[in-house]
């Protein structure tokens, strides 16, 4: 037997369910522009019909519907797109860091231009040519000295500026590591909150959104993978559980977040600058390895992402050289080492020619450049020898006591184009240079072509980084678009839903009026015959 008030109950449920849907619509509209927000839908479900089959069921025809209820509020989201997005975001992070590092280097090298190292050297060679035509002239000698000074200063400037940017990269790595560790901590905190809510059968959608947003952010820095870990209890089927975040180190999974626990990443040989007992800044000598959640991960297997781009720019240790000194590879250490080689080769070769010439006062065996004791650091150390303060010591002549002899100045001007692959070079007036005995670090091309080659390499590295950055940006954008297509709020759609739910709500209310009228008839209008 159906209850008299069955219809009222069904209509009341309908009103409540439609109201819940309407409120969710309002929540969606309110968050239409919230970063990381996923639109939510109320899952409406017909309530179990009456009667429930059983021995004592009332004998009525068929089952009578009992109305509707809001079963759950779920996010409309596709997990697969998240995985794709994070993969692309990591690549973009990597290429962005690299493109940025190259761009800064290009700014410093400032080639091709009228103020780069190439131009400064060109002017030096020109001054030597002028000296060759006026060897007895103090002015020409003074110009050679000044231009030589300009070359050494340009070497210093380039080396110092690159070192400065490299130090900045180290600081940036520190900030990134701190941020990554903070994100890991936040994700584990959200995991903990989710683990408290889910066993009660609720779906903490807004926490899911926040957690996904944090994981998205994290993916920019390191290419991470996510696994779900169910929390148990009375969790809904749609519950997402806790996220375990890990990276792949070869075939091994290295966990950074496990449920409520977050580990951190650090540089075992680095330094702690903010007193939190995490060494977030890499050592000056280059990154040896990273500690990720207690596992040592080498730079070569560091997953994609901004952090890897920064570390590659900053430099990492890669084996040891013949003297047992660590070899540091990377964008900035590479260019710094190249500049050292160039300064050493240029200065040593120039000295070798200069020492064989004679000054205005007949002096010979005088070095033009000083500070060239070793290749390492030569770009910082190269300087004019103090002997050159006396302009008469500039060895323009090939023979002693010949004030008008500028042949060695020509020899010096031609150092620019000496082939470094030669074992010996003979110059004007029988001056020979034994290149093999100088043990120059550059052994092919000329001083000039080596430099041009590095600028070319820098350009190619930059071109590739820019291209890959723009490619991965487009890919990420396309995935993001797909994701938005699924998850973002459409105001039109919400307006439609609003009308839909409003009408359903109104209709349910009207149903109550109908039942009210019916009951009025039964209660007040019946049994009054003849009154």
């Amino acid at each position: 037997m159906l209850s008299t008030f069955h219809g009222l109950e069904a209509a009341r449920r309908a009103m409540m369910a439609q109201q819940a849907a309407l409120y969710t619509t309002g929540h969606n509209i309110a968050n239409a522009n919230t970063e990381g927000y996923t639109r939510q839908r109320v899952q409406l479900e017909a309530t179990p019909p009456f009667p429930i089959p059983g021995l004592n069921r009332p004998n009525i025809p068929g089952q009578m519907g009992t109305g509707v209820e809001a079963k759950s509020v779920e996010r409309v989201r596709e997990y697969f797109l998240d995985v794709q997005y994070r993969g692309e975001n990591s690549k973009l992070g990597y290429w962005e860091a690299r493109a940025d590092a190259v761009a800064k280097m290009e700014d410093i090298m400032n080639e091709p231009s009228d103020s780069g190292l190439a131009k400064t050297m060109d002017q030096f060679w020109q001054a030597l040519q002028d000296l060759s035509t006026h060897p007895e002239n103090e002015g020409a000698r003074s110009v050679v000295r000044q231009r030589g000074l300009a070359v050494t200063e340009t070497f210093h400037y380039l080396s110092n500026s690159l070192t400065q940017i490299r130090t900045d990269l180290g600081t940036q790595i520190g900030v990134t590591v701190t941020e990554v560790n903070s994100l890991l901590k936040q994700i584990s905190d959200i995991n903990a909150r989710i683990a408290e809510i889910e066993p009660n059968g609720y779906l903490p959608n807004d926490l899911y959104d926040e957690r996904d947003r944090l994981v998205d952010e994290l993916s920019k820095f390191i290419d991470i993978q996510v696994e779900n870990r169910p929390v148990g209890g009375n969790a809904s089927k749609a519950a997402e559980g806790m996220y375990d975040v890990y990276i792949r180190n070869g075939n091994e999974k290295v966990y950074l977040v496990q449920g409520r626990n977050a580990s951190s990443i650090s540089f075992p040989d680095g330094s702690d600058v903010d007193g939190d007992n995490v060494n977030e800044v890499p050592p000056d000598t280059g990154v040896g390895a990273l500690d990720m959640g207690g596992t040592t991960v080498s730079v070569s297997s560091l997953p994609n992402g901004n952090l890897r781009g920064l570390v590659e720019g900053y430099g990492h240790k890669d084996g040891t050289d013949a003297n047992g000194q660590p070899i540091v590879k990377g964008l900035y250490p590479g260019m710094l080492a190249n500049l050292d080689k160039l300064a050493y080769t240029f200065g040593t070769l120039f000295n070798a020619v200069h020492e064989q010439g004679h000054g205005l006062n007949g002096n010979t065996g005088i070095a033009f450049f000083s500070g060239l004791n070793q290749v390492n650091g030569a770009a910082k150390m190269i300087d004019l020898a103090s002997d050159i303060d006396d302009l008469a010591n500039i060895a323009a002549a090939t023979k002693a006591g010949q004030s008008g002899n500028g042949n060695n100045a020509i020899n010096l001007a031609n150092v620019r184009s000496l082939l470094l692959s030669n074992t010996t070079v003979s110059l004007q007036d029988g001056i020979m240079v034994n290149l093999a005995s100088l043990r120059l670090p550059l052994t092919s091309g000329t001083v000039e072509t080596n430099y041009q080659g590095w600028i070319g390499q820098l350009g190619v590295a930059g071109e590739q980084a820019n291209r890959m950055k723009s490619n991965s940006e487009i890919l990420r954008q396309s995935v993001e678009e797909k994701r938005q297509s699924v998850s973002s709020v459409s105001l039109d759609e919400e307006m439609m839903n609003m009308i839909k739910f409003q009408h359903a709500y109104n209709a349910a209310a009207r149903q109550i009026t109908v039942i009210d009228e019916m009951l009025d008839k039964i209660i007040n209008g019946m049994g009054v015959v003849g009154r």
Partner: protein
Amino acid sequence: MRITQSMLANNMLKQITRSYEKLDQYQTQLSTGKKITRPSDDPVVAMKGIAYRSNLAEVEQFKRNFSEAYNWVENSDSALDKATQALQRIRELVVQASNDTYEETQRQAIAKEVRQLTEHLVTIANTKVGDKYIFNGAQTTEPPVTVNADGTIAVSTNDQQLNIELAKGVYIPVNIPPSTAFGAGNGLFSDLQDLAASLENPSTTGDELTGYLDKLDNHLTHLLGVRAELGARMNRIELMEDRIDSQQVIAEKMLSDNEDVDLEKVITDLKTQESVHRAALAVGARVIQPTLVDFLR
């Protein structure tokens, strides 16, 4: 595909940003006049750019060296021209004096003139251009000819060639060594001093004086030979300068072809991008505006 308002807004923003990037690129190209501003814009252009600049700097330096070479050769030639004139005058005087009818006082006067002209030749040999003695080999800070206390004249033996590099690896000697111009040891000057002494000596016969004509002719021929060589050298320098001139034009052209923008192309691209940009803005303004909210009452 389901499209939402936020997607439209984001997309529009991205497109407009991209459009601005292009406008910025054209603006940079137009204001610098260069296709590229950094190596990554085009590594090949950048690398070539450095090489072409070096090349151009070298060529320009050689051009500068030319003026120095001309300076040497022209000044040497002009000095030697003066020397030739002086010698010719002396020759005329000798022809006069060899006439036996000349009296002693007349010969004395000629002797005086010869001595003056000899001093003049010393001055010519010690010609200085700027701060250099041009006839003293590599010893340009010392005069090549010195008059000793006893009146004898010594010519230095500094015959080192002075080279100027006028093209890659091409060294042109620009100086005339003192021994070549004025005779080794003190050839010319001792002959002239002998001549003056003979003129002053009353017992010198006309025939003896005529003997000096051969010597003078020898010196004159020698000077002419040196000047002919200078002329030839000058010719060679001029030819080389022609070549370097065209090399400079080529180097400048290569530099320009490599990195200078094609203005017409960039301006056209800019105008095209400008209209695309306007269209993007207009479309954005239209698409973003209306939603169902505006129509539902």
